[in-house]
């Protein structure tokens, strides 16, 4: 059983500070949805509103179509996994996992059996009688997931649960979480500031900044078609050019500024707004001579070998920093430090985007 979640114009104020501003999103049953944003962007506040620890100042939250206003966390069909996991250190693992069942009056034998089933599900059999302090970080993680699953929630809420783990374990747990989500079919709402996590695991991602949801889309769309400068910059790297935008035709527009004249895609929403040009380093080529359009001369200042590609950094006129990724395919020429080259990109790969969507 899983439920969808609808947020309708949800706002949350802490005193005079607006932590969440007019957030609306429809999360489908069984979806893996991530809120991605820097710390302080309001994503944890959204999670705490859904779980019931904070009431929204304005707006409506529906879980499975039901308005949950005034319902305490212990009466909502959600289970929250805390950033620090918040396992009960004085209970053995199996009591931790079956605590939610104990609350519901399930008898001890059934609780014990269920705890062991869940331990098998999270790939941690035989840990039932251990204490929390005897487990490693990744094992505690699994226990926290099992404890949340034990109450058969319709929605699982995860508050950066992987942030305390080391890189390798984090990547492993990503895949694990995704697998558990698919196996159980429960709706997952995942909070993270790690774009890699959000893009790799999610069905859809909501990117947040300063209390506002900037964009809701599939990971691929977030990366390839960001709606504004904030999303483009938060998710991946960019070369950015300022300038005055020219007339629009066929979804393309010109931009003329201190670094020359460019042509790039423009979305209907960006038209008529102050925009800048964003292009990804991996879509930027380095050529010896200027191309017909979208070319900027720069001096190479740093060449960093990254394995599959080589990251070339340079400075253009006026101290503008640019970067390009050159494929390590043995064919493409890699310029040397001090060389003068042209950074060139296709108009179809560049986007004219307004700045972040903030209030005021």
């Amino acid at each position, binding site marked *: 059983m899983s439920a969808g979640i609808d947020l309708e114009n949800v706002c949350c104020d802490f005193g005079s500070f607006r932590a969440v501003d007019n957030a609306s999103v429809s999360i489908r049953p069984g979806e893996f949805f991530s809120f991605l944003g820097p710390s302080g962007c309001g994503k944890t506040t959204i999670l705490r509103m859904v779980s*019931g620890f904070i009431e929204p100042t304005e707006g409506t939250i529906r879980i499975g179509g039901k308005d949950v206003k005034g319902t305490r966390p212990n009466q909502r069909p959600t289970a929250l996994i805390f950033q*620090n996991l*918040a396992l*009960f250190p004085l209970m053995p693992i199996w009591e931790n996992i079956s*605590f939610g069942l104990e609350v519901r009056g399930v008898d001890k034998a059934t609780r014990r059996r269920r705890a062991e089933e869940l331990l098998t599900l999270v790939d941690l059999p035989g840990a039932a009688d251990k204490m929390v302090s005897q487990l490693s970080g990744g094992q505690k993680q699994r226990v926290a997931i099992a404890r949340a699953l034990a109450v058969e929630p319709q929605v699982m809420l995860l508050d950066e649960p992987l942030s305390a783990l080391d890189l390798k374990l984090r990547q492993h747990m990503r895949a694990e979480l995704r697998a558990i989500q698919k196996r159980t079919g429960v709706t997952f709402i995942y909070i993270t500031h790690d774009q890699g996590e959000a893009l790799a695991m999610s069905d859809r991602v909501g990117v947040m900044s300063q209390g506002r949801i900037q964009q809701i889309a599939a990971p691929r769309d977030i990366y390839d078609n960001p709606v504004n400068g904030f999303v483009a910059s938060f998710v991946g790297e960019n070369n950015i050019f300022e300038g005055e935008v020219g007339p629009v035709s066929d979804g393309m527009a010109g931009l003329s500024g201190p670094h020359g004249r460019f042509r790039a895609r423009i979305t209907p929403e960006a038209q008529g707004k102050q925009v800048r040009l964003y292009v990804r380093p991996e879509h930027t080529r380095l050529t010896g001579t200027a191309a017909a359009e979208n070319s900027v001369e720069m001096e190479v200042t740093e060449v960093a070998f990254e394995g599959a590609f080589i990251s070339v950094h340079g400075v253009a006129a006026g101290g503008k920093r640019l970067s390009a990724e050159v494929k390590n395919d043995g064919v493409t020429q890699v310029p040397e430090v001090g060389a003068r080259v042209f950074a060139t990109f296709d108009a179809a790969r560049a986007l004219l985007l307004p700045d972040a969507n903030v209030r005021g």
Partner: protein
Amino acid sequence: MHDLIRRYGTGLTTLFCLLVAFWLLVLIILPNFSMLFESFFPYLPVADQGGPKDVFTLGNYEKILANPIETAWFGVPVTIPIHVNTFVDTVFFSALVTFMTLILAYPLAYFLAKVASPRSIPTLLLLLFIPMWVSEALRAFAWYIILTFNGPLNAALKALGIIDQSIRWQNGIVTSYDAIVIVLTYCYVLFMLFPIYTAITSLDTNQIEAAEDLGSPWWRTHWRVVIPHAKPGIASGCVMVFMLSAGSLLVPTVVGSTKANWFPQTIYTWFNDALDWNTGAAYSMIFLLVCIIFVILMMRLFKVKLSDIAR
């Protein structure tokens, strides 16, 4: 030890060790041994001291079993030596005081540690502390006045229409120890509050929220998460309040009724009125020993380790 010497030098380290040794040896161990020693010898006129009558005896300890009286415990008639009766009453009502302070202190400690806004904590703690700036004697006398027959408590209750006849609080309504229990509870509640407050402060609030998120009602969250975490604090509070109450001389003397005898008063009578220090010492030893055994039994019962309390 090497660490101490490296950090503070030989001079200061020696001073520390000597001071600790002085405190332990001269102020605690020697007086207690002297009492233990005295308790095994009879109380004699100066002329007989060191004479043939001054021999090792258990007579002082036997005195507690003298003078049986008829009394009733919870309606059951019993015949019991008068001092043993006092003794049992003292332990029982000290345990009651401990329970009362726990009932009062736990919710307050939880409120201070987890509910009250951190900015208001210094003010609240100050308000709790102010009464403690007045000496225990004055506070006991203040309660004497409050509980007296024509005192403010009776006046207030009559004005509110709760009672129509003044109550002799010091004689007690439930037992003759009512006044002592009330005032001891008041005097020692902070000794219960602070260890519990400290213990609950160290509990991760996320654990309380996690329990609630898993569907737990408030009482189960307290029973399964907060109280187990606060147990060392509760235990050290209980031991402190119990020992302080059982050892209190001043409060029972000031507010106790003529029918309420507290064991320290009995000991005091031996020392001060009978001038029989030997029997007083024997009574003190019995009292100390039985109270320690009682505390250890209680710790066993509630599965508390000594190292938990020392934390």
